[in-house]
């Protein structure tokens, strides 16, 4: 939300202002830490003096643990970063050891043997990765386990490991202490390499692939190659560990050796107990697991042996990030002691002023020269005015035709809207353009046949996109995501990146500069270091848009960029998109349900319905086409849109009458019905404080809902609406406050109990169980009832109310369109015969027509069945539905209004769609 004050309206509704105490709500601390050099000196002194304290046999175990920790560091790349749970790491340690001994015993110097072990294990691990490319999640764990079993059987079978071969240490490494220092140096080098991997292209692409393999092509990343690279790196690390072990031992016994099943499983344990991304933690874990049981006195050693499995369980229960997480917590604690409480940040986007905006855009323009695509772009004179022409695009999924010979064109420097009902095929079209879905037809893009280009190559051609659900990794920080999105521009070899050669340094600096400019442009620069997943949903979407803009694409595809944004936030986004178009000539294709946004931003517009283009033209014309109105907009939205636009565009006599159109019937009937009842309080919330872990989101929230009312909860992104609902329905236990429902104190009760007592929630995103059928979903709605006759009765009733559900009752819920899913979600909630229905973002992702249908349905349930409903909504139309509205701001209820008081909120929100808020 822009920080500058909006034009103030009259007293009933206060727009966001400084009068509301700025609480530290939804504000995470930027963690403090104590200076790195302190740790560094401590560790160095400890490591260097260690041989002085230990007996030779003890030092031997430590060396073994160091070798083991290098293999575990490699596994951290594979598991912690790329998300591939491999249980075969010890097999590669074994192969590395065998290779090193074989080569070393022929008299070659140790560097040759070590390098050969790393290369052979890297290649072998990569090869094993190939058949695993399509495997998902824990299938990888099992398949690698079988490989481990095979490898150890093979290595142990006679003739493979020659017990007579010896790999002798050179004279300068004969002493155990010197071999200890030698291994220590290799560990330090491995840690540095790991760190370099993390902060250069491979590390970022690993995270992206782990987060969503099917989408990374849209960022110019090849998922397969990336995964194989991770396998190869892990293999090379295992090879190095094996080589260190081999040179230490000199030879391998036929059955002993480091390649057994148990070490393999322990390696995974070490990598996780140590903590993803924490080399210190991993090395410490390796010493605890491998060395401590053997170097401590016998009694203590035995306890340590028992302690290892206990540690695996206890650490994972209390500190999911392992030793590393524990060290981090300690570090933050000490840092806070030394430097005082850290600064907090505001999770909302800032408002960039016009000068900043122009400076950012000027800076970003340079990026256009970075892209290889400019070479394929014909000279300006030869340019066709059309940047993008898709012809006859057809997609079939099984028997369903998702797109049916769709023709869509985008002119250079124009923003083209793509509207249409849910399930019309809009997102499928985007997937075709970015190459994630196969289609027939042709796409000409800037003189290139786009269909002939592989999916990962299209980003390099200047096609960038966002996804309907967040498509970038949530565990990475905002800045990392911005740099990740430029992977197609990070053109250096992985080895160059590890060695920090000049080309890498300069490229990385350039990418970071671009990322920062784009963040500043969207007012997100203060959030650069925050993990994306910690931000409110709408802000995440904005980060994704900013990430797509970083590479300054020629064609930007935005999939419902405004969903979850308030009207002011959507307006600010519209400003920036127009600037990108006007100043930099970025062409865009935007999927949108928010009609004022289309009207405000788009130069041209296509409307899709069941896979076909049913209308196209300037937005003002398209939104008036009868076929668009019946399939997408609905009558109410037409009123509203044209009422809004009549101020912005040329006034139109015919529209003037629309302004005074009577309020829709549903709203009056709802209000009237509610008025006749005695307002007994059904739900009363007092002084509610709630949040996630140490993060407090709600501060002293109090409100109530009367029996038979529809109450609306509005507010900006991250204001705490969803948290309020999640606390009410028992998913989050409140920190303080009292919730009374139907005369009973329900504070802290579980959702399972609350369903039984009549309080049911429809979660954001509709909460489908996609693998189950529609009928099964409905049956589960009545799970708490054991009366079969009653269940049957309610099932019949809901089939009567929602005939589409009866028709599709045997189909999987996941195959329904968004609107049908919303119907199913409501019908399912009603199956338990609730008294109060909580609905989070009832219209999120629904077309205006579906939104209207949903609202009508809620209104009918209210008037006919007397159901009380609490709706969280962003749309102005919801105001017609409710009797009362609460507005949340920064975790508090800032305004409550009912009856005529709501008109001021309405007029404020409607105005917000009109003008530009930029200057």
């Amino acid at each position, binding site marked *: 939300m822009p920080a500058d004050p909006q034009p103030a309206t009259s007293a009933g509704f206060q727009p966001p202002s400084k009068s509301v105490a700025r609480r530290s709500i939804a504000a995470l601390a930027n963690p403090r830490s104590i200076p790195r050099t302190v740790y560094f000196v401590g560790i160095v002194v400890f490591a260097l003096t260690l041989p002085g304290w230990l007996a030779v046999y003890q030092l031997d175990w430590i060396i073994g643990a160091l070798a083991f920790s290098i293999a575990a560091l490699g596994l951290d790349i594979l598991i912690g970063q790329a998300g591939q749970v491999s249980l075969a790491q010890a097999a590669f340690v074994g192969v590395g050891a065998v290779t090193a001994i074989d080569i070393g015993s022929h008299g070659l110097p140790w560097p040759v043997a070590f390098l050969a072990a790393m290369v052979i294990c890297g290649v072998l691990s990569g090869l094993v990765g190939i*058949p695993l490319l399509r495997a998902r999640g824990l299938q990888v764990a099992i398949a690698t386990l*079988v490989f481990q079993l*095979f490898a150890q059987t093979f290595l142990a*079978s006679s003739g493979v490991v020659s017990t007579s071969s010896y790999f002798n240490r050179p004279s300068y490494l004969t002493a155990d202490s010197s071999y200890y220092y030698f291994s220590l140096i290799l560990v330090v080098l491995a840690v540095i390499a790991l760190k370099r991997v993390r902060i250069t292209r491979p590390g970022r692409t690993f995270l992206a692939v782990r987060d969503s393999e099917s989408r990374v092509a849209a960022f110019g990343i090849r998922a397969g190659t990336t995964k194989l690279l991770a396998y190869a790196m892990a293999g090379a690390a295992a090879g190095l560990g094996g080589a260190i072990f081999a040179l230490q031992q000199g030879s391998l016994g036929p059955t002993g050796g480091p390649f057994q*099943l148990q070490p393999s499983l322990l390696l995974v344990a070490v990598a996780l107990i140590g903590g993803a991304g924490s080399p210190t933690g991993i090395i410490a874990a390796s010493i605890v697991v491998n060395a401590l049981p053997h170097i401590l006195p016998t009694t203590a050693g035995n306890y340590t042996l028992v302690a290892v499995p206990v540690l695996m369980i206890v650490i994972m229960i209390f500190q999911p990030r392992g030793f590393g997480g524990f060290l981090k917590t300690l570090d933050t604690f000490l840092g806070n002691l030394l430097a005082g409480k850290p600064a907090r940040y505001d999770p909302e986007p800032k408002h960039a002023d016009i000068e900043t905006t122009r400076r950012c855009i000027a800076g970003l323009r340079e990026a256009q020269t970075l892209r290889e695509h400019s070479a394929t772009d014909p000279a300006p004179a030869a340019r066709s005015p059309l940047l993008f022409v898709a012809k006859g695009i057809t997609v079939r999924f099984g028997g369903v035709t998702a797109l049916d010979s769709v023709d869509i064109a985008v002119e250079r420097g124009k923003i083209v809207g793509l509207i249409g009902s849910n399930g019309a095929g809009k997102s499928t079209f985007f997937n075709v353009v970015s190459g994630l879905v196969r289609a027939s037809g042709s796409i000409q893009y800037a003189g290139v046949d786009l269909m002939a280009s592989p999916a990962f190559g299209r980003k390099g051609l200047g096609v960038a996109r966002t996804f309907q659900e967040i498509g970038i990794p949530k565990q990475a920080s905002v800045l990392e995501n911005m740099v990740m999105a430029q992977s197609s521009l990070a053109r250096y070899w992985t080895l160059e990146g590890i060695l920090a050669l000049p080309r890498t340094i300069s490229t990385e600096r350039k990418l970071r500069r671009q990322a920062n400019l784009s963040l500043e442009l969207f007012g997100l620069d203060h959030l650069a270091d925050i993990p994306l997943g910690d931000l409110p949903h709408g802000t995440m979407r904005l980060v994704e848009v900013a990430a797509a803009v970083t590479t300054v694409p020629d064609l930007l595809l935005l999939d419902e960029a405004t969903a979850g944004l308030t009207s002011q936030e959507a307006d600010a986004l519209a400003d920036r998109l127009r600037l990108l178009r006007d100043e930099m000539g970025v062409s865009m294709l935007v999927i949108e349900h928010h009609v004022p946004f289309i009207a405000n931003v788009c130069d041209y517009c296509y409307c899709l319905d069941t896979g076909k283009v049913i209308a196209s033209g300037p937005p003002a014309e398209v939104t008036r086409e009868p076929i668009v109105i019946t399939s997408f907009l609905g009558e109410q939205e037409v009123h509203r849109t044209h009422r809004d636009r009549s101020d912005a565009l040329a006034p139109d006599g015919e529209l003037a009458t629309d302004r005074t159109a009577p309020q829709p019937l549903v709203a009056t009937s709802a209000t009237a019905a509610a008025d006749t009842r005695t307002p007994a309080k059904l739900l009363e919330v007092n002084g509610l404080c709630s949040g996630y872990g140490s993060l407090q989101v709600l501060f002293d929230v109090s409100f109530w809902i009367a029996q038979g009312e529809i109450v609306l909860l509005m507010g900006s992104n991250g204001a705490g609406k969803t948290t309020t609902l999640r606390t009410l329905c028992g998913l989050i236990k409140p920190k303080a406050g009292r919730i009374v429902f139907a005369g009973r104190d329900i504070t802290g009760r579980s959702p399972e109990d609350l369903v039984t007592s009549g309080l049911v929630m429809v979660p954001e995103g509709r909460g489908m169980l996609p693998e189950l059928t529609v009928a099964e979903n409905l049956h589960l709605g009545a799970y708490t009832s054991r009366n079969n006759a009653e269940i049957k009765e309610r099932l019949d009733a809901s089939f009567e109310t929602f005939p589409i559900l009866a028709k599709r009752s045997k189909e999987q819920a996941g195959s329904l369109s968004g609107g049908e899913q919303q119907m199913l979600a409501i019908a399912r909630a009603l199956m338990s015969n609730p008294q109060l229905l909580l609905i989070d973002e009832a219209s999120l992702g629904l077309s205006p027509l579906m939104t209207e249908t949903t609202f009508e349905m809620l209104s009918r349930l209210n008037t006919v069945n007397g159901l009380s409903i609490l709706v969280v909504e962003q749309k102005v139309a919801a105001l017609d539905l409710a009797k009362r509205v609460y507005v949340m701001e920064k975790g508090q209820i800032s305004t409550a209004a009912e009856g005529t008081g709501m008109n001021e909120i309405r007029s404020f929100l409607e105005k917000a769609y009109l003008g530009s808020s930029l200057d």
Partner: protein
Amino acid sequence: MLTTQVVTGLAEGGAYALMAVAIVLVFSGTRVLSLAIGEMGAFGLLLGLKWDRTGVPLVHWHPSANLAGPFAMLLAIVCGAILGVVVERFIMRPVEDRSPASKLVVTLGIALFLALAEYQFISTNPQPMGSPLGASGTGQLHLFGSVVTWDDIASLGLAIVLAGSMALFLQKTRFGLAVRATTSNPGVSRLLGIRVARVHRFTWVVGAALSALAAAFLSSTSGEIYPLSMTAALLYAMAGAVIGGLDSLGGAVSGSLLVGILQGVLAPRFGPTAAIGATLGLVMLVLLARPRGMFGTVDAS
């Protein structure tokens, strides 16, 4: 010759299949790949055999009946069920929100802990294990020219019957529907009033009990059981589960039988390396050609 080996393989595959059903049940109920399930089944078996050896009247009331096996199996099932409750409540529930890899490590911790407890309190030596069916279990009969025991037939039959009835239970009953809902989305299931913890407890209890059954037959075939031997056997069952499809009960049974046959046919001729190599090849082939397993369900987009 080949028939004999196939039949032997099927017999061993039957016990793997029981174990695979346990893995698949826990996996589809909780999304945890449990490395502990084998040891959870074996614990009671080892306890029972030790009990038998130290001489308890109940077991020796009729020496000729040779009730050590049945007694150990029953105790293993009871112990498995108890361990299932404890593990779900005190270990798996607190780590519910962790990554799959973390949960895998937690189950490894449980397996190692149980193994250490077995070493410490029961025995470090392999325990001889008789037939879980008592004296009649080792009775032989001739089938297609090869010799099979009643044990073999029982384990294969149990695997098929139990997998079938479990699948039916999941499809047709109210609680089965709740299990499938939990598999699909635990958070949403809670909002519908399903007690997700109860579903998880159910899968752990039944899974561990099935694993005890599998342990009894596997150790009867090999004649002995020792700490971590069932965890090693678990790997073959896991291979079978991944071949058949990690979320399909029928797939787990057929995959495990296939693994059993491969071992039975190849190991005597070409040695253990070739047999396990062929299993690896089959796993890789299935993952390449049908990543969800031969019978795995295709989830909705």
